[in-house]
C-alpha cells in the first residue's frame, strides 16, 4: 500500500473526488434537455487519469461503469497535444465507444503545466442520425446505418468552441435543438468538474492528489481482493443466450469461463458465438464494461468503483465474436443485449465460487415504440414504452423486486405516470399490475413482471417497432432456482387471431382499438424451490403473486 499520504488526507481527497462527480451529475440532470437524460438519467460521470484509469465515478447507469477507461485510452491515443481549454468528443464503438447514441465529452484537467485528469461526461442521445429515429434499428447490417460515427474530435480548441463542428453534428441528428442542448449540458458539467478539480490541486498540490489517488486505488484493490480471496478457487463456466438476432439466427450463446485463483479472476468470453449481422453485437468497450458490471454486482456495493477495485479482474475475449464485433458491424443494442447475457453468464459461472453473492437473473429489455396521430389534437406522436418493467432476480437477501427493470438499469429507470400517458397520448391502460406466476420459483422467488393491456385509441392506423430480447429465454434462476417466465407480448386486433410480437420488428401495423397484451418477464428464483418456506408460499398465494398451483 502506498504510504506517501496519510489516511486522513487520502480520505479527504477521496471524499472530494466523489463529491465532484456527484455535483457534476446533479448539474447534468438539471441542465440536460432531453427526457432520456433528465428523467431516465441515462448518463454517467467519471474522472479518469491520463492512463485511462477510472479515478471516480458517480453511481448512475451500471452498464457504463467500466466503459469510460477505454474511451479515455482512445482519446489519449488520438491526441498527444492536449491543451488547457480543449474539449474532446467521441462516440464511435470502434474508437473506444460503446454504441453510437452514447456521446462522451472529455475536458482535460491540468495542475499547472501538467495534465493529470479528464472530467468525463457520457450521455445517451435521443437521436444520433442513421436510418431510424433513436438509433435502434433491427434492420441494420452495418454501423453506418445506425447513425453518425464520431471518432475522438477536438470540439473546443484551447478554449475556443468549434461551432462549425457542432453545426455539422447537429445537422446530422433529427432534433438538432435537443442535441445542442444536451451537448452544452455535457460540456458544462465537465467544465464544472474541471473547476473543482483545479481547486483540489490548488489545495493539496497535484503530486499529493496523485499519491492519494494511488493510495485510493490500493485501498479499493485491497478491499476487493479480501472479498475475492474468500471465494472458492477453480475454473467455472456459465452461459446465457440471446433469443435471436432478428436476422435468422436463434439462441446466440454467450459463454464465460471464469478462472478464480487466490484473489485474481480471469473472465474468458472467447467461446461465445460468432458475431452477427445485426445490432446485437457488442463493441469491445461495452463487453469490458459488462464484465466489470457483473463483478461490481458480486463484490460489496459500497466499494468505490475505480481502477483499483477492478484490478483483480482480467478479461479475455476474441474479436469476431458476438461480444466483440469486428469494425463495421452494427452494435446499437449492445448496452442492453448482449450486456445482460454477458453479466448473466459471468454471475452463473461465479455462483459456483461465491454462491451467497450470486443473485438470480434480472429481466431483459423488450421495448415498443408507437407512432401515430392523436385524434384529440390532430398531432402526431411517438410513444416509447417504459411501463411493464420486468422483475428483478432473487438473492440470498430475499425475493426479487417486482416491476423493477433489467441487469443494466436495476431500478434506475422511472416509467412515469399512467394518468399522464393517457392524458398526453391516445392510449388507455386497461390493466397495469403485477403478473402472477411470472417470477421464477425458488427458496427466494423472482420478482414479478407486469401485465399490461394497452388499448390504442387512435382514429387512424398507427405503426409500432420493437427492439429487445427475452421472449424465448427468461431471466436465469440461480443455485436451483427456476428461470423467470420470459416476456410474452401479443397484439390483439378485432377479427384477427392474436399476433405474437417478436422482439426485433419494424413497421407493425396497429389498427384503432387494437390492444397490446404485454406480459413482461419475471426475475429468476434463487435456491431450490423445495427450500421455500411454507409461510412464504402461503403469503404468495394470499397476495395473489402465485396461483395456488402456479409458479414459473
Amino acid at each position, binding site marked *: *500500500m502506498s504510504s506517501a499520504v*496519510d*489516511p*486522513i488526507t*487520502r*480520505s*479527504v481527497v477521496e*471524499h472530494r473526488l466523489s*463529491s465532484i462527480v*456527484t*455535483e457534476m451529475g*446533479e448539474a447534468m440532470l*438539471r441542465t440536460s434537455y432531453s*427526457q432520456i437524460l*433528465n*428523467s431516465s438519467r441515462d448518463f454517467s460521470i467519471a474522472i479518469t487519469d491520463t492512463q485511462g484509469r477510472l479515478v471516480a465515478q458517480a453511481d448512475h447507469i*451500471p452498464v457504463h461503469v467500466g466503459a469510460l477507461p477505454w474511451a479515455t485510452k482512445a482519446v489519449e491515443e488520438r491526441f498527444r497535444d492536449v491543451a488547457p481549454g480543449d474539449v474532446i468528443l467521441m462516440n464511435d464503438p470502434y474508437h473506444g465507444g460503446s454504441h453510437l447514441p452514447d456521446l462522451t465529452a472529455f475536458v482535460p484537467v491540468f495542475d499547472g503545466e501538467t495534465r493529470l485528469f479528464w472530467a468525463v461526461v457520457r450521455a445517451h442521445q435521443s437521436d444520433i442520425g442513421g436510418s431510424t429515429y433513436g438509433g435502434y434499428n433491427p434492420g441494420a447490417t452495418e454501423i453506418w446505418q445506425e447513425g453518425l460515427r464520431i471518432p475522438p474530435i477536438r470540439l473546443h480548441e484551447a478554449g475556443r468552441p468549434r461551432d462549425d463542428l457542432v453545426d455539422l453534428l447537429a445537422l446530422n441528428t433529427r432534433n438538432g*435543438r435537443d442535441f445542442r*442542448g444536451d451537448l452544452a449540458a455535457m460540456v458544462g458539467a465537465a467544465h464544472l468538474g474541471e473547476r473543482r478539480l483545479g481547486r483540489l490541486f490548488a489545495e493539496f498540490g497535484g503530486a499529493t492528489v496523485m499519491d492519494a489517488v494511488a493510495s485510493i486505488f*490500493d*485501498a*479499493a484493490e*485491497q*478491499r476487493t481482493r*479480501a472479498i475475492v480471496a474468500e471465494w472458492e478457487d477453480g475454473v467455472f463456466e456459465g452461459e446465457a443466450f440471446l433469443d435471436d438476432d432478428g436476422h435468422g439466427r436463434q439462441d446466440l450463446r454467450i459463454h464465460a469461463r471464469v478462472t478464480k485463483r487466490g484473489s485474481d479472476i480471469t473472465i474468458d468470453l472467447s467461446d461465445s458465438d460468432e458475431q452477427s449481422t445485426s445490432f446485437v453485437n457488442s463493441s469491445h468497450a461495452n463487453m469490458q464494461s459488462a464484465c466489470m458490471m457483473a463483478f*461490481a454486482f458480486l463484490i460489496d*456495493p459500497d466499494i468505490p468503483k475505480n481502477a483499483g477495485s477492478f484490478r483483480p479482474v482480467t478479461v479475455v475475449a476474441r474479436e469476431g465474436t458476438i461480444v466483440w464485433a469486428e469494425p463495421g458491424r452494427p452494435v446499437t443494442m449492445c448496452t442492453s443485449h448482449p450486456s445482460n447475457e454477458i453479466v448473466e453468464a459471468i454471475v452463473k459461472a461465479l455462483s459456483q465460487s461465491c454462491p451467497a*453473492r450470486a*443473485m438470480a437473473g434480472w429481466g431483459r429489455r423488450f421495448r415498443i415504440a408507437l407512432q401515430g396521430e392523436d385524434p384529440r389534437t390532430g398531432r402526431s406522436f411517438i410513444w416509447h414504452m*417504459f411501463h411493464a418493467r420486468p422483475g*428483478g432476480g432473487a*438473492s*440470498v*437477501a*430475499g*425475493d*426479487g423486486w*417486482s*416491476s*423493477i427493470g433489467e441487469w443494466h438499469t436495476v*431500478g*434506475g*429507470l*422511472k*416509467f*412515469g*405516470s*399512467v*394518468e399522464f400517458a*393517457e*392524458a398526453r397520448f391516445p392510449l*388507455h*391502460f*386497461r*390493466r397495469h*399490475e*403485477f403478473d402472477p406466476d411470472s417470477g421464477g420459483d425458488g427458496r427466494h422467488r423472482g*420478482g414479478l413482471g*407486469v401485465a399490461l393491456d394497452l388499448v390504442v385509441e387512435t382514429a387512424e392506423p398507427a405503426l409500432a417497432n420493437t427492439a429487445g430480447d427475452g421472449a424465448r429465454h427468461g431471466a436465469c434462476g440461480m443455485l436451483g432456482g427456476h428461470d423467470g417466465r420470459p416476456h410474452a407480448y401479443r397484439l390483439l386486433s378485432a377479427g384477427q387471431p392474436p399476433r405474437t410480437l417478436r422482439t426485433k420488428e419494424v413497421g407493425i401495423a396497429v389498427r384503432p382499438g387494437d390492444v397490446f397484451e404485454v406480459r413482461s418477464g419475471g426475475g429468476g428464483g434463487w435456491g431450490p424451490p423445495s427450500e421455500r418456506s411454507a409461510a412464504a408460499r402461503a403469503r404468495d398465494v394470499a*397476495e395473489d403473486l402465485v396461483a395456488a398451483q402456479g409458479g414459473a
Partner: protein
Amino acid sequence: MTSLRIGIDVGGTFTDLVAVDADGRTLFAKSPSTPQDPSIGVMAGLDELARRHGLPLGEMLARTERIVHGTTVATNALLERKGARVALLTTEGHRDVLEMREGLKDARYDLRVAPPAPLVPRRLRLGVRERLRPDGTVETALDEASLDAAIAAIRAADVAAVAVCYLHAYKNPAHEIATVERLARELPDVYVSRSSDVLPQIKEYERLSTTVVNAYVGPAVRRYLTNLERRLRDGGLAGNLFIILSHGGMAPVDEAGRLAAATVLSGPAGGVAGSRRCAQLLGIGDLIPFDVGGTSTDISLIAGGEAALSSERGLAGERIALRSLDIASVAAGGGSLAQLDAGGGFHVGPESAGAVPGPACYGQGGAAPAVTDANLLLGYLDAATFLGGRRPLDLAAAERAMDAMAERLRLTRDQTALGIHRLINLKMADGIRLMTLRRGVDPRRFALLSFGGGAGLHAVEVARELEIPRVIVPTVASVLSAWGMLASDLRYEVSRTHVGDGGAMTGARMQDVFAELERQARARLTAWFDGAIRTERSAEMRYGEQVFEIDVALGDIDWQAPDLVARVEECFHRRHEDLYTYASRGQEVVFVNARVAAVGAVPTLEHDPKRWTPAFGQDHARGEVLRPDGDSTKNHPARAQREPPAPDGEAPATARRRAYFDGWRDVPVHRMETLAPGAAFDGPAIFEAETTTVVIGEGDRATVNELGWLDIALRSSLSPA
C-alpha cells in the same frame, strides 16, 4: 399580564416552549419529551412555563390567545412503522401502483437487498370496478357489487384506516365520493383518506402514496391532537390551538387531522419558520438554515426572505407529494462514528452512535470515536460545561477511543481528531452544495444560519468550504423552532389539474380556474380566521417532452391582460432558465396544475430579544443569569481561568482554554449571554451558550449584533489572503 401566545416544539429529547406576551416579553421553558404520549411532556412544559410566569396553569391558559404546536406524531409513526393497518380501494387492474414505485430502486449496485414492504400489503389493496378517462368522463361506472365485495374484505381485515384512490379522480371525484359515503355508512369507525381530497392532482403514484401515508398516520395524529386539545380545554385554554404543517404554515386541529400526511415535517418546519423570522429581523433575504443534531444535519433554504418549498419529498422511503418545506437531511452529526474499512479507508458516518451508547465521551460504553469525541479532544467542547453542565463528558473515554483509532491509522490523537472534524465538515458542506445546486442558486451569496446544538462547532468551517462569507448564530438557537412557530401564518392550499382537459388553455379559462380555486381557499381560511387574507397563485408547468414539472409563482401577473397565457408561459420560461440555465421558448408548454394558497397573516410578533429569559436555570431574573461571575466559573474547574477585561474595550472573556487551530492555541472562551451588542472578537475564539458552542478560526471576526447574536465574517471575505 396581557394575552399570551405559546409555541411548543416537541423534539427528540426536549420539548421546547416559548411564550410571548403582548409587550414582547418572552419566556422559555424546556421539559423532557415523552415519546409514548408527547402530550405529557407538553403539559409538563406548560406547567413549567406557568411557574415561570408566576401563574397557575389554568390562569395562564385562560390568558392564552393562541398555542402553536409542532408535532412529531406522524413523523414517528412513519419512521418507526407504527402507523395504522390500512386497506386501499383502487381502480381494478391497477392495484400495484404503490408497490411498483414507478420502477425505481436506490443503491444501484446493491442487488442483494429485499424489496421494502409497502405500507399496504397486496391482499389489502383491493381493486374496484370503475374507470374514468383523463377528461373526467366515465368509461366504466362504479360497480356496486365490486364495491360490496371490497367493503366485505375490509370488514374482515379489521383495519383502522382506508385509503381510496381511483385513476383520474383528480378530475372527477364522483366515484371516490360515492365510495367514501358507503364507507362512512358501513364502517363508521375507520379513518378514511380520499385521494381527490388529499391531493387532487394528476400522477397516480404520487397521489396514491400520499393518500396511503395520510391513512397510515391519520388515526394516530387525530387521536393525539384530539386528546391534547381536550386536555388544554379542560385546563382552561380559551384561545386557538394551531398545528404547524410541513409547508411551514399552520392550521387548526381538525384540518391537521384530516390532512395528517401534511404534518410529517411539522417539527422541523418550526425551525424553518424561525429561520425565516431571523431573516426578517436581520434584514437578510438569503439564508441557509443549518441545524446539526446527533445523527443528522438538516439543511433548508431561505431565498428572498421565503422558505423554499418542494413537492418532491417523502419520508422513510414513502412518497409524500404534498408541498412541503424543502429540508434535506444529511447523515452527519455529533454521533457520527469514525471507522476504518477493510482497505484501510477512513470514514466518518453515516453510522451513528445514536443516543445509546452515544459518543465515547458519554461514558456509556461507546468504543469508536464519534464527531463529538473529536470536538472534545480538539478543545472545541468543554467536558464540564456540555449542555450547560447537565451532561459532563468523560474526557478519558474519548481519549481511549481516539487513541485506539489513531494507532490503527498510525497518526497522532490530534491528527485523528482533526481528520474526523474535517471529514464531517466536508459531508455537511456537500449537503448544502447539492441543495443550492438543485435550486439553481450560488451558496456564496447566502449567509449560513447556525442553529441546533451542534451547528456552531462546524458552521464556520462548513461555510469556509463553500466560500460562504458570513455565519450568523442566534442566541436562542436551541429554541428557534418553538419561537419561529409563533411567526407562522395560517395557510391553506388548493390545487387543480388542468392537463387532459383537451384543447388549449385560454386566458379566460385560466382566469376561471384560478378564481374558483381562490374562492375555495378563501372560504376555507375564513372559517379558521377573521383577519385579512391574501392569496398566492402558482402553476406547475413543463415542457411537452419533459416528465417533471416546475412550480412557478405567478405573483406579478396582470390577470386581465389579453395575452395572459403567454405571460404565464413566460414566467415558466424564466423560472426554467433560473433553475436549469436555459429556456426553450419555441417549445410547447404544458400547464399541469394550478395552485392557490390562502394565507392569513397573524399580527406580527412584538419582539425584543433583549427581554428573553433563557430556558434553563432557575427563576432568576435576566441580570443574574447574565452576570459574568458567580456560578459560571464552577463550570470550568480544571481548564478555565478567570481573566480581567481586555484593555481594548472588548467584553471580557469568561475563560481561556487550549484548543486546536493549526496547532494548539490558548484561546478565549466567551459566554454568549454576557456579550454586549457591538462587541467584536477576532478568532480563534470559542463562544459558549447553554446548549451550543461556536468556534471561529484565525482571521475570522465575530461581531455581536443588536439582537445579541453572533454575526461572523469569515477571513476569506475580509482579505484576499
